[in-house]
C-alpha cells in the first residue's frame, strides 16, 4: 500500500508542478490545490499503514487496540488540510486582487515589483541631483 501511495504522491506532485509553471494564475491556483493533496498523501504514507481501523480507543478500554492506524500523521494531516486550504484561498484572493488592480492573469506580465528598468540606486548621483548648500 505504501508503495502505491508513494507513486500517487509522484503523480500528484508532477501534476502540481506542471500547473504551477503555467502562465495563467487560475492554473497556478489549481496547482497549489494538487500540491496540498500531494503533501497530505506523503505525510500519511510516511507514518506507514499500521492498520486500517480508526485510531479510537474502545469504550472502557485504556489503550488503542492493535490494528489501529497511526494517529500522529492523521493529526498532522488534519491541520495540514485546513492550512493548505488557507494558503490556496489566500492565493485565490491575491489572484483576484491582481486582476482587479493590474487587469492581468498572466504571471509573466506581473512586473510591478521588478520592472525591466530599475531606478538608479547610486547615492552619489542622488546627492548630485539636488543643490548643495555647502560653501567650501
Amino acid at each position, binding site marked *: 500500500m505504501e508503495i502505491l501511495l508513494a507513486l500517487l504522491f509522484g503523480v500528484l506532485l508532477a501534476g502540481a508542478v506542471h500547473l504551477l509553471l503555467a502562465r495563467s494564475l487560475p492554473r497556478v491556483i489549481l496547482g497549489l490545490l494538487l500540491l496540498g493533496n500531494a503533501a497530505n498523501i506523503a505525510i500519511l504514507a510516511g507514518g506507514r499503514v499500521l492498520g486500517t481501523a480508526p485510531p479510537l480507543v474502545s469504550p472502557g478500554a485504556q489503550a488503542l487496540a492493535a490494528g489501529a492506524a497511526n494517529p500522529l500523521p492523521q493529526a498532522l494531516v488534519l491541520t495540514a488540510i485546513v492550512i493548505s486550504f488557507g494558503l490556496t484561498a489566500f492565493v485565490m*484572493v491575491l489572484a483576484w486582487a491582481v*486582476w482587479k488592480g493590474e487587469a492581468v492573469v498572466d504571471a509573466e506580465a506581473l512586473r510591478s515589483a521588478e520592472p525591466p528598468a530599475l531606478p538608479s540606486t547610486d547615492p552619489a548621483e542622488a*546627492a548630485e541631483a539636488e543643490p548643495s548648500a555647502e560653501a567650501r
Partner: protein
Amino acid sequence: MIALPLLVALPFLALPLVAMGLRARPAAAPLLALLPFGLFLALLLLPPGAAFTAERLPSLGLETSFRLDGLSRLMALLITGIGAGIFLYASAYLKGHAALHRFLAVLTLFMGAMLGAVLADDLFSLFVFWELTSLASFMLIGFDHERAAARRAAQQGLMVTVAGGLAMLAGFLLLAAAAGTTRISLILEQAGALAAHPFAPWIILLVAGGCFAKSAQWPLHFWLPNAMAAPAPVSAYLHSATMVKLGVYLLARLNPAFQEAVLWQGLLTGAGGLTMLTGALLALRERDLKRKLAWSTVVALGTLVTLIGLEEPLSATAAVVFLLVHALYKASLFLISGIVDKKAGTRDALVLRGLARAMPLTALAAALAGLSMAGAPGFIGAFAKDLLFTVQLGVPGLLPAIALAVNAAMVVVAGVVAARPFMGRPMEADRAVKEPPLAMLAPPLLLAVLGLLFGLLPGPISAALIEPAAGAILGRPTGVALGEKQGDELVLLLSLAALGVGVVMYLGWSRLQPRLAGQEWLDRYGPDSAYGEVLRAVSRTAVALTRRVQAGSLRRYLSLTLLMVFGGAGLVLVLAGGLAIPGQAAPVRVEQALLVLLIAAGAAAAALMRDLFAQVMGAALVGFGAGLLFLTLGAPDLAFTQFTVEVIAVVLLVAILARLPFRALDARRAAERRNDAILAGVVGAVGVAVMLAILSVPFDPRIPEWMGQAAVPEAKGRNVVNVVIVDFRALDTLGEIAVLLIAALAAAALLAKRGGRREP
C-alpha cells in the same frame, strides 16, 4: 563597585527626560551641562582601580565588566569635563533651533556610549559601546539632514567606522579565543604569551584596522574632514576631543599585550607617520577654518598612533601628555571657529581678519589655545612638544625629519586659525561682529586657560593623571615626571627650528595656499574619491546582479528552485546510494487501488485538460478521492475534514473564477510546455524516489504506541487524533490556527484595498 555601571547608565537613563523635557522647555537646555559636570566630579572621587563584573551567560563566558584605571580615568575625565563645556556651548550655539532637544539627546547618548567604551573591561561591551558612538556620530554629522553634503558625510563616516568596527569584532573574537577570556584586564596579564600566539598577526591587523578607521589613520582618514559638516560643538567634542581618540585609546589599551610584536610596532609607526604627513600637507592647503582644524586633528591622531607604536617609556608619557594637550586646545579652537563662523558669517581663513577689536575675549581664548598648539614655552603644549621631539629623535630613519616638517606645519595652522582671523584691519562683514554670549565664550576660554595653568603648574596633574595613564599604556610604571627636563640641546634646537620654519611659512601662507590648492590631483586620486568609486561599483554590481537573479519571471524562479531542490535531492540519492524499494508493506485492497487510480486520473485531467472548467472538476476529483482514500485507511476525521474543505474550496474557487476572465488559456508556447512537462516528470520521479527511500527506513513505532496508551489515562479522550490536536500537540495547533487567522487578515487587507485599475 556598582558606581561604575551606574555612571555609564546615567546618561542613557536621562535620555527620555532630555528628549521630552527639552522639547517642552528648550530654555532649560543649559542646565543639561550639569549632567556631565556631575559625572566629572563623581569620576574625580572614585578610587582608581575600581572594577565591576556581572556575569551574563557564564556558559558562553559572556560577562559585563567595567574598570577604572589610569588610562580610562583620563579618558572619562576628558569626556565628562569637556562634555560639560560642550553641552553649555551647544545650548547657546543652537538656541532657538527646532531640533535642539534632539541634538542634545543624541549628544547625551554619545556621552554615555563614550563613557561605556572607555570604562568597559570586556571586549564585547567595549564593542557595543564603540558601535554606539559610531551611530551617535552618524546622527550628529547628519544633524543638518536637509543638506546633501551633510548626509553624504554622515553616511561616509558611518560606513568607514562601522566597516572598521566589523574588522575589529573579528579581531576581538580571535583575541578572546587566543586568550581564553573576554576580560581585557585578564588579557593584558598574559602579554608575552599572546604576542607569540599564532593568531597574533591577524588579531593585530583586524583590531588595528578598526582603530585606524575610528581614529582616521591613513588611508581611512578622509571621513574626518568631511565630518565637519556637523555643527561646531560636535566637531569639537566627537571629532577632536573624544570619539576619534577612541581608536587611539584602544591601541593604547592593548599595547601591553602586543608591544613586543614587530608587526604592531611597524604598523602603528608606519600608518601614524603617513597620517601625519598627509594631514600636514592637506592642512596647509585648506582655507576653511574647520576643515583646517580637522586636518590638524588627523596629524595629531597620527602622532598619537606613532607614539604608541614606539616602545620607549618616554613615548607613553609623550602620548598621554599630547592626548590631553590636544584635547584641550583643539576643542577650544573648534569652539572658537564656531563662534567666528556664527558671528562673522564665514570660515574662510583668507577672508577673515581683524576680529580682535570686536571680540577681544574670543581673541584671547584663541591666542592661548594657539600658543599651546604651537608649543610656546609656559604652556602645557611645550612639554608635549619637547617630549615628542625627544622621543622621535631617538628613532632611526625618517621620523625626526617628518616630526620637524609636521611641527612646522602645525605652527602654521595654529597661526592661521588662532591669530590671523583676529589680526589686522577689521574685515568688511555683512553684520555687526560682537562677542558671543557667555555660555559660548566660557567653555573655549576655560579650556585654553587650563592649557596655560597646567603648563605653569605641571606637578599635580603629572602625578594624578599623566603617570597612571602612561603606566597603563606601558604595562608598568614609567618613572617619568612632567616638568623634568627631558631633552638635550639638540631637542631645544629642533624645537626652535620648527617654530622658526613655521613662522616663516605662516607669513607666506596666503601665497602658498593657492598654489597648494591648485594641485587638483590631490582631490582626484585620494582615498575619498576611491570611496566614492567603491560605492558606485557596489551599486552597479548590485543592479547588474539583481537584473540577472531577479528577472521578474515567476516561472523562472520556480523552475530554478525546483531544479535545485529536486535535482539536488536526486543527486544525493544516487551518489549516496539511497535508492531503495521498501521490503515490507501493508496489503492493497481493491477499493483502495481503484481510488488511487481515480485520484491519479483527476490529477492528470487537472494538469493536462485545456478547458479551465474541466480542470477544476479534475482537481475536485482529486480532493474527494483523497477523502474516500482516507476513509479506507482508517482516518474518518481526515475524510470529513477533506470533504467539508473541498466543498468550501470549490465554492470559493467558482466564485473567484467567475470574476476572472475565462480567456485565461494556457499562454505557454509548445516548447515551454514541453520543458515544463519534462521538469514536472523529473520532480515527480525524484519525489517518488525520496518517498521510497523514506519508507525503506525501519519504522520506529514508539511515538504512536505511547499516544495510543496515554490518550485515555492522561488526556481523557478516546479519539487519539483529537487528543493529539488539542492536547499532546496543542501548542502546534495554536500556531496553526494563528496562521489561519493571519491568512484571513492578509486576505481582508487585500480585499479592503479599493484602488482604481492601474494602467498596465
